[in-house]
């Protein structure tokens, strides 16, 4: 069974928590005791119906204020797929939370209220999905019950969104008319909208093809851990490199190049979790042994001799700032990229991107919380990277404030949000 990770984004009152509650409830992923707790709380609060939003609002303050504070993760499965939902709030800390929740997603689900149509936040969510290169976007036009299930309303929202989306870099955009409250087109096909001939949401999530979204071409194996069982006598000669394959296919006998040393060797053995395997595919955690005893340590990378990542100390990036303390271009930061952490400084700040209008503000000296901009860094030593467009694993990094240890930014190497404008 395959795993699909998706993130949800929407504004306050778009009914996002209700939609997730509905997906969990209608797919029978809610337990009776959880439902009873929600029924009781709904009654205590004087809600007129069983408030499915309460299934996802986890922290006390959220339940009291009826808002969602932080990214929450939900799980459900159908006979076809397992799903991980990253539920991101739309109002506060919006960019920070959406970037966090969507960074590992295969798909993003953007909710709009059919009464309001496309608003500023909808464009912002789509833009962030595009920056993060989430390959699939589903626009859920919710609260169709309040618009008499009107085809015209849905079509005009869909058209407006698709026009905007053509300027973005999202592979696949789908619009679905739903009512989370009544369940129309969430799990079962809506009888109120016979004019809609696409899949209901859940069916779409089960069917969307994600197999081609991984990079199977460029072999990149960042070394996490050198494994040498010195104390154990019969394993004394074992020297393996533990890591998670970022991209490409790793096969026994493959000729590899170790970076930064530049030494070549061949893959002698690949150990998977259940013993020796002939080949490893992206995201498998394995241990690799080489034919030759060459010096490799954590932070190094294995690739093919004729397909190397870029090796360099200067990078340009799209930067999403996530801290209350603004970016200070005079300061040094730490950057964590693959399995390497090193010092870095900003050498140039090009522009700030207005995430609502997608306007580039060139008059920029800093980035503040929830702002996105283009920044160049100089690193204290070379890293092995690819453009985020080609490789999410080797094209992404986080920025750490050395004084507070906080994670202050997410960076995408030379990532651009728009198709050539």
């Amino acid at each position: 069974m395959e795993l699909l990770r998706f993130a949800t984004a929407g504004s306050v009152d778009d009914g996002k928590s209700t939609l997730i509650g509905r997906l969990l409830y209608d797919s029978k992923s809610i337990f009776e005791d959880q439902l009873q707790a929600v029924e009781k709380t709904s009654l205590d609060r004087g809600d007129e119906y069983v408030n499915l939003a309460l299934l996802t609002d986890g922290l006390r303050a959220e339940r009291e204020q009826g808002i969602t504070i932080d990214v929450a993760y939900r799980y459900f499965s159908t006979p076809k797929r397992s799903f991980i939902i990253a539920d991101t709030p739309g109002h506060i800390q919006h960019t920070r939370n959406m970037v966090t929740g969507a960074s590992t997603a295969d798909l993003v689900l953007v909710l709009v209220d059919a009464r309001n149509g496309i608003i500023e936040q909808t464009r912002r969510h789509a833009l962030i999905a595009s920056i993060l290169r989430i390959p699939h976007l589903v626009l859920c036009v919710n609260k169709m019950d309040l618009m008499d299930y009107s085809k015209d309303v849905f079509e005009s929202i869909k058209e407006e969104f698709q026009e905007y989306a053509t300027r973005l870099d999202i592979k696949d955009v789908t619009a679905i008319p739903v009512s989370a409250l009544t369940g129309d087109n969430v799990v079962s096909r809506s009888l109120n909208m016979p004019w809609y001939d696409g899949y209901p949401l859940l069916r779409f999530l089960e069917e969307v093809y994600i197999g081609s979204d991984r990079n199977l071409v460029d072999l990149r194996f960042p070394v996490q851990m050198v494994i040498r069982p010195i104390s154990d006598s019969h394993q004394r000669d074992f020297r393996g490199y533990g890591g998670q394959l970022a991209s490409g296919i790793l096969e026994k006998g493959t000729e590899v190049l170790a970076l930064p040393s530049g030494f070549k060797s061949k893959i002698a053995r690949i150990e998977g979790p259940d013993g020796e395997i002939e080949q490893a595919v992206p995201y498998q955690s394995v241990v690799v042994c080489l034919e030759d005893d060459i010096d490799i340590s954590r932070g190094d990378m294995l690739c093919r001799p004729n397909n190397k990542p870029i090796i360099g100390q200067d990078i340009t990036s799209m930067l999403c700032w996530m801290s209350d303390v603004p970016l200070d271009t005079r300061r040094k930061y730490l950057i964590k990229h693959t399995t390497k952490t090193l010092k870095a400084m900003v050498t140039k700040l090009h522009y700030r991107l207005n995430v609502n209008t997608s306007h580039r503000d060139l008059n920029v000296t800093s980035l503040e919380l929830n702002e996105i901009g283009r920044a160049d860094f100089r690193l204290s030593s070379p890293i092995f990277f690819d453009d985020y467009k080609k490789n999410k694993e080797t094209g992404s990094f986080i920025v750490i404030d050395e004084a507070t240890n906080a994670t202050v930014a997410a960076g995408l190497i030379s990532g651009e949000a728009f198709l050539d404008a």
Partner: protein
Amino acid sequence: MGNEISNLEALEAEAIHLIREVLTELERPALLFSGGKDSAVLLHLAMLAVKPKKLWIPIVHIDTGHNFEEVISYRDKIISQFDLNLIIGSVQDSIDRKTAVEEPGNLSRNKLQTVTLLETIEDYKFDALFGGARRDEEKARAKERFLSHRDAFGQWNPRGQKPEIWHLYNTKHHTDEHFRVFPLSNWTELDVWKYIKLRNIELPTIYYSHQREVVRRNSMLVAVTDLTPKLEDEESFVATVRYRTVGDKTCTAAVESLSSNVDEIIEETQTSRISERGATRVDDKFSEAAMEDRKKEGYF
């Protein structure tokens, strides 16, 4: 096709990646082991992460003294089988030192474990503790990070969590602070059982169907033991039961079940309509925010 990995393999790979990051970037990690199924899976993953090297970090058991005998004998067997280094933090010791105080009338030592856990962390200066908690267990956990920061008082600050982006974990921390590390964050109860089958992981026998003398208390089945004797107005009877979680004997209930092997438990879990905690934990029901409050204080 053929290049895809299954749901379980993806979860396994994600967990091993996190374990390796913590083992290489932190100085004094340890692994919390209760003898329950989640910690059995966690231990299995930690051993896989460093295989063929022997797992060298300490295995920490916070011992309430209220254990099922089967769990303790299982723990000792696993520790000796894999030649691991066991550290026991005893709640009874904390009580004797008067750092933990039992509430009159409350038998459960669940809450007191927090004191012993924080004392053990302090004694050994651990900077990271692997735990088997899952986000699907409970609403407050659903918001917790893989790498969850604890301040010098062991407290969790849910509103001040570091964002976790891609799988790039920030392991930087100040002295006296530590991390709780949850490699099983994205696993569900069903995933855990399917994985136990896939990798053939041994568990304490009480997870499987057996006969036991029980009483029915607040619609839950409570085993009749030295610590949970039959009350005056109660009738005890022998039932065919198993445990869905193992914990403090005084607050963990059994469920009626005929499932005597992993396949039958997977089947049972797939059709169960009651959550794991709802079915077996006597202490989570007190308030909507019970878990959130305990976690803030430093609970697992």
